[in-house]
């Protein structure tokens, strides 16, 4: 058995790719979360109360599930979630702070999204996944850590790992999600290693971007 990256996707401010193939989206000027929600024909009212970071992570997972239907064949505790970014929940933190700094009262609806791992919770709730989940923060996409820790989890009790880097900085959205599975494949797929991850990451996301 070898660890393969079987599906991956990129979501930027107004463009989106699955396995490197661009997805035709109708309205490039519209908010990408709205466009993708419609594109995926989702009916999930909870989506609309999520913050932007969570929405983007959620949509990335939906894109991966749509492309790779095998994701849904795993048992409820066999998929681990491993996500990361550089800015934690900074955008929502600022929004929450502004609710009480200008004479208003602190908003509980915003406060609950002021932790980056909330997006892991929303993904777990949507899919009824009870596996391991870890959120880390690093200055840049840490391909080494993703590669190492995926291998660690797959050697332990998990069968697959759904990984993601989601960094939002004002209008700049950087998202790279990938699904890693243990497979016994003869035909060549994308092997899990840090060089491969970095190469895939940078096909759509510029260095020092």
């Amino acid at each position, binding site marked *: 058995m070898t660890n393969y990256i079987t599906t991956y996707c990129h979501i930027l401010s107004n463009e989106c790719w699955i396995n490197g193939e661009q997805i035709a989206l109708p309205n490039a000027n519209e908010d990408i979360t709205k466009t993708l929600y419609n594109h995926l024909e989702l009916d999930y009212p909870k989506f609309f109360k999520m913050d932007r970071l969570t929405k983007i992570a959620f949509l990335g997972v939906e894109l991966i599930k749509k492309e790779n239907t095998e994701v849904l064949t795993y048992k409820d505790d066999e998929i681990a979630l491993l996500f990361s970014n550089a800015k934690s929940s*900074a955008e929502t933190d600022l929004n929450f702070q502004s609710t*009480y700094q200008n004479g208003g009262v602190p908003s509980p609806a915003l406060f609950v999204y002021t932790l980056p791992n909330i997006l892991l919770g929303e993904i777990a709730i949507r899919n009824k996944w009870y596996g391991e989940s870890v959120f880390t923060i690093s200055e840049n996409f840490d391909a080494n850590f993703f590669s190492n820790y995926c291998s660690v989890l797959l050697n332990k009790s998990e069968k697959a790992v759904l990984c993601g880097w989601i960094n939002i900085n004002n209008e700049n959205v950087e998202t790279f999600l990938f699904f890693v599975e243990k497979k016994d494949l003869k035909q060549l797929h994308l092997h899990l290693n840090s060089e491969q991850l970095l190469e895939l990451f940078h096909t759509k996301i510029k260095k020092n971007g």
Partner: protein
Amino acid sequence: MKTYIGAENIISPLGTTAKDNFNLIKNGQTGIKLFKKIGFGKVDVYLSKINETSPNNFFYFLLKQCLTSIIKDVNPEIIKSQDTIVLISTTKADIIENLKSPIIKPIQQLKKKFNLHHSPIVISNACISGVLAINVANNLIQSGKYKHAFVIGADVISDFVLYGFQSLFAISNEPCQPFDKNRKGITLGEGAGGVLVSNDSTVFESPCFEFVEGTSSNDANHISGPSRTGEGLFRTVSKTLKLASIKPHEIDFISAHGTGTSFNDEMESIAFDRLGMNEIPLNSLKGYFGHTLGASGLIETAICLQSMRNNVLIKSRGFEKIGTTKALNILTKNKDTEVNTILKTASGFGGCNASLIIRKL
């Protein structure tokens, strides 16, 4: 290959070493006191706060002090080694001074100050961050990627976090009373905690312990409320016991999360009942340190190690009468007893739960 854990440190209003903190809480002291007009709406709030006003760069200061203390208790050479990683556990890091990027700058400072070979890995998983960071350290060591992992957790009290918990009506108007019938919510705390996790028992100055196993599991239920069935906590403890090949009755003591909120403590009682572990002596340390968020898992694990060193279990401060639907064996006074194997658990926002088992060598 075994993983070892030790060289624990705690920084709290009570003191700056694990030993001092342990001795003071053993004597019934708490870091919690009333702060006047500090909350949103100028209300008085109980907090476990180190300074009246936090000094500049306080988050970084806590990390630096904690790491310095751990280094003093181990072979000092290993901190610079390429086989060493530093793991940081935090929820809001330096939110007071740098809301837009609260974590990256202190981490860079730390890397430079200690001449670290690798950039520290930051784990930010709400209130399970500390327990999870120790588990991640063990996993990385077991994989052979690193030999040593310094795991340090810190969080500071800020208006941001205090007002947020106030907005959820989760702050107790008295010092928190985990698992008690009259519990009214959490008391926030601040501080730092840390340990060294290593594959080499000879790097520790004092006796170390075996880190047996640790896992996490999500409730897949609600982002800000715990599962009514304790599903995630049940699953992580079951998984940890199974991977460790340890039976529930072999656990001498449970260091629970016990925040003092109605729903959390109830959920924990249901999970431990489902696990058949409700007769095992258990405490929550939140009555001494408050809820220190990203530091809590490390501070509480450090106290577990002290309990094992001293063979004393600490009473659950603030608890008088059981306030959960399932019975628990909550420590109402300190207990002198042989403590060989402990279970530490944590649960947090985002539906996350984590557990770990440590035993004497």
